[in-house]
């Protein structure tokens, strides 16, 4: 009994889930879905599938299936008992209906699907799923087939008839197991967490929903719906203020989050903390995967605490730097001085205390200034680049190949003093590091200088190993690095490798147009895959040791990782602070790399 109940729930749940994102074909966005009308205007959570058939196509599509098959957890799951039992039932039903799973889904949920959660004041929450089939008769057939299966299965086991059914206002409804009920009303499949929920929806269908009572009349919903992209497959909307009222513990964001989160996302976490709603959307077509989240700015604007996080009108993060071979690139607008000032309020006490210890090295390296003064000298644009290097040009070529890292600071326009101090600090740091490496018998860094395109680069290079070294001994990974700094216009480059410094100097000389984001991050899966492939034999050996696998298994594991990275292609995360809202977007150009492949 439990088995078939479990299987049935599995089936319904997965169908439901897929149905949320499957549905009709080419339904224009302006059309209000039939099912949405039934949702109350004060629904707390609303999720809708907008472009259904397309998702079935994507999931059933070759490249996605191939990707799934390379994920070891997935392969293990499809070999598991739960899956095969569920699959049995599904195949049985499909054969009864004479269809395949993807066709069946398109038929079943073709008209759209909506999942909603309503919490009346002082009442119990109700969750329900509305599925609009493309083919109403198909829905009825599927239902009959499932009921038959359940009855037969119970009879085989000598158990009583599991199907409980009742009538309400002339509509037949069925109960499935202990919880949950469903009915087919006006050619819409209504699945609810309780009989009461289903009854209420039947009422709404038969009596109609009064004007202004439905969510489609709600102003907020309408605005959010209008904002979703035309190619979105699904979108959702939740009222955070009501969720917080209902269950503070689950939905409240802690006052203070760990330092890295706060530093990067502080103001947006605040928006999440105080915002009255949140909206999200998902789009997926062929080669593009796009997701977005929108939050309103807090009522009355952000607290003064967050001054360092939001660029004022007209300011934004600097354009990304992407020299050749870039694996990842980041650009962030952050007023470090303002963040530093507010550190006691922004960060947890132990973190704030640890941060105050930065005053000491600030004084040592910047001649008596404290950290606030140093932070004040840096302008608000921060850029970070991680790039593959040209290893063939290195002397010697290190055995383990690392990427190069660089931080590009913007300086205040007329400050002549600070860039010099930065360069001095760099050289002092190198000196200190050399003293340390003498103790560890590591070679020191030789300081040098180079002029490139009329810019002076302060370079360093690890002393070359003596000739006559054991050829079998691998070249140390430190030879990946040649830390260097350069002052270009209003920018200061701090880089781990002089090659990257040169590329950045070139890139900074021809700056791209500024954008309107506060944070932009780009990453290129296939560039990363290229780097890892260069290190493949090492990765295989490390995989063997870290996972206890043999060579063949390890090679498979590494190749899987590489193909997933290549599949993910090029990804971009942007965060925009608009007039009233904050928007976070994540886009992937699947299977592509920025630049080289057409």
């Amino acid at each position, binding site marked *: 009994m439990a088995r078939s109940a479990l299987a049935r729930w599995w089936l319904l749940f997965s169908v439901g889930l897929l149905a949320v994102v499957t549905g009709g074909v080419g339904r224009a966005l302006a059309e209000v879905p039939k099912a949405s009308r039934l949702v109350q205007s004060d629904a707390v959570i609303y999720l809708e599938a907008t472009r259904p058939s397309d998702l079935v196509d994507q999931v059933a599509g070759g490249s996605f299936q191939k990707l799934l098959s390379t994920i070891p957890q997935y392969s293990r799951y499809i070999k598991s008992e739960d899956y095969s039992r569920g699959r049995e039932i599904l195949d049985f039903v499909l054969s009864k209906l004479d269809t395949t799973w993807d066709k069946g889904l398109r038929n079943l949920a073709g008209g759209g699907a909506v999942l909603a959660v309503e919490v009346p004041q002082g009442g119990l929450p109700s969750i329900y799923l509305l599925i609009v089939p493309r083919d109403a008769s198909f829905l009825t057939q599927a239902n009959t087939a499932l009921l038959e299966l359940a009855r037969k299965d119970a009879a085989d086991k000598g158990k009583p008839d599991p199907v409980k059914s009742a009538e309400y206002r002339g509509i037949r409804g069925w109960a499935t197991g202990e919880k949950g009920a469903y009915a087919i009303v006006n050619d819409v499949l209504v699945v609810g967490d309780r009989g009461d929920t289903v009854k209420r929806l039947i009422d709404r269908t038969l009596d109609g929903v009064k004007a202004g009572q439905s969510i489609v009349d709600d102003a907020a919903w309408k605005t959010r719906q209008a904002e979703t992209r035309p190619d979105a497959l699904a979108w959702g909307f939740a009222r955070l203020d009501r969720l917080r009222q209902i269950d503070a513990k689950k939905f409240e964001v802690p006052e203070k989050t760990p330092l890295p989160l706060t530093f990067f996302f502080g103001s947006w976490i605040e928006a999440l903390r105080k915002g009255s709603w949140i909206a999200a959307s998902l789009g997926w077509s062929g080669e593009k995967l796009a997701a977005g989240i929108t939050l309103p700015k807090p009522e009355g604007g952000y607290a003064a605490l967050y001054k360092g996080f939001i660029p004022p009108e007209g300011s934004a993060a600097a354009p990304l730097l992407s020299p050749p071979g870039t694996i990842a690139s980041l650009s962030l607008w952050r007023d470090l001085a303002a963040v530093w000032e507010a550190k006691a309020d922004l960060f*947890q*006490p*132990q973190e704030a*205390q640890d941060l*105050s*210890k930065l*005053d*000491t*090295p*600030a*004084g*040592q390296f910047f001649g*008596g200034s*404290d950290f606030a003064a140093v932070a004040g000298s840096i302008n608000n644009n921060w850029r970070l680049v991680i790039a593959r290097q040209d290893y063939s040009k290195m002397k010697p070529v290190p055995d383990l190949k690392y990427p190069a890292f660089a931080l590009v600071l913007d300086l205040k326009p007329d400050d002549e003093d600070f860039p010099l101090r930065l360069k001095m600090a760099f050289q002092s740091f190198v000196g200190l590091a050399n003293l340390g490496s003498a103790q560890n018998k590591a070679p020191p860094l030789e300081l040098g200088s180079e002029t490139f395109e009329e810019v002076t680069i302060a370079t360093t290079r690890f002393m070359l190993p003596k000739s006559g070294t054991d050829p079998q001994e691998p070249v140390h990974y430190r030879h990946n690095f040649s830390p260097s700094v350069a002052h270009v216009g209003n920018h200061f480059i701090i880089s781990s490798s002089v090659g990257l410094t040169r590329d950045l100097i070139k890139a900074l000389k021809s700056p791209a147009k500024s954008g309107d984001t506060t944070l932009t991050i780009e990453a290129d899966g296939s560039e990363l895959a290229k780097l890892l492939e260069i290190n493949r034999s090492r990765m295989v050996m490390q995989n063997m040791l870290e996972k206890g696998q043999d060579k063949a298994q390890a090679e498979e594991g590494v190749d899987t990782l590489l193909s997933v990275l290549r599949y993910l292609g090029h990804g971009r995360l942007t965060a925009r602070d608009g007039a009233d809202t904050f928007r976070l977007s994540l886009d992937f150009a699947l299977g592509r790399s920025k630049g080289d492949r057409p």
Partner: protein
Amino acid sequence: MSPNRRAFLKSSLAASTLVSMGAHTVPGFLSRSARAASAGSANGRVLVVVQLLGGNDGLNTVVPHGLEGYPRNRRALRLAPGAIHKITKEIGLHPSMGQMAKLHEDGRLSVIQGVGYPNPDRSHFRSMEIWETARVENGALETGWLGRAVDALPTKAGDDFRAVQIGTRSLALALKAKRTEIPSVASLEQFRLQLSGSDSDRRAERDALDQIARLDRDANDPLLGFMRRSTLSAYDSSKRLEQLAPASADSKYPTYGLAKRLELIAQIIKAGFGTRIFYTSLDGFDTHANQLGTHAALLNELSDSIAAFHADLASAGESDRVALMTFSEFGRRVRENASLGTDHGAAAPVLVVGPVAKPGLVGEHPSLDDLDDGDLKHHTDFRRVYAELLENWLGCPGAPVLGTGFDPLPLLRKA
């Protein structure tokens, strides 16, 4: 295996009546009254050493605000007398050390002033080496004073580790021993039995594991008996620890890193493990620039953490058998430098918390005028402090560890 070890094994096997390992003897062996026995020597006293890395500025820790030389030498770094926690009319503790001042009021704090060694070395590395090995002469020494003490304490096979370092740093030189490897522990996890499942599952499994070891075997095999005894002792220790371990929700310790490490030490002590020496450190005292904020934060962490530790032990009735000592590789120069900080110095105070014989200041404050090249002169050799802790507290002869000529400095009451 050396002949000595064989002899130990034979004698320990005979002594603990393993031949008849029935239900009476085992609990007797493991009972609380045998805690002293499992500690391996006449007393169960514990020493906790907190190493302050970087060179703590003693002058701004134990502040001689009443001495004229203080405001003269410390302009920007001067601490206002009003905020200082008074020990005597002229000398008091840094404003951040309120909790430590309370310990002093309760008679649990001794401040030994002017501690150092002849011909002070101002290099971090060398001076810390001197403090950790208790040798001022040149020449590489590979064992530390606590390592040598551990080598000197009698151990039987099966005894708990005599000393433990708490934290994630690599093992301190002070704990390097010739004959044993002192473990470094970062969390309590390795002292627990990692059972899984529901509460009743875990209890059932623990009982089953215990039973297998507890059953009397027919044959008389001393080695097997020894393994049985070790296994049971281990399970028992783990159980004691779990019974005592507080839920982290109602931990009364502040969230500082040092507090967490001291909390772990307190748990191990309360669970009755035979470990005698605990060692941990706090980093960040090398304040060459912008000292005020950093130093205040560090002393706050130090003071609050030690106070919480002491309160924890006191509530478990263990505070009279635990002594805690803080030390640093040197103090700092009397005159502040131009970067609102201080540079490496020499003599400094050592704090001792526990059942002290004479709470308050021990020894005079070094003169602020009669200086050794700008640094305070020491009048108490640090090895006298070590000698007191070794001989009169831990019950370990001082001469093999420190050499001769260091009279123990009377510090602690022996309860």
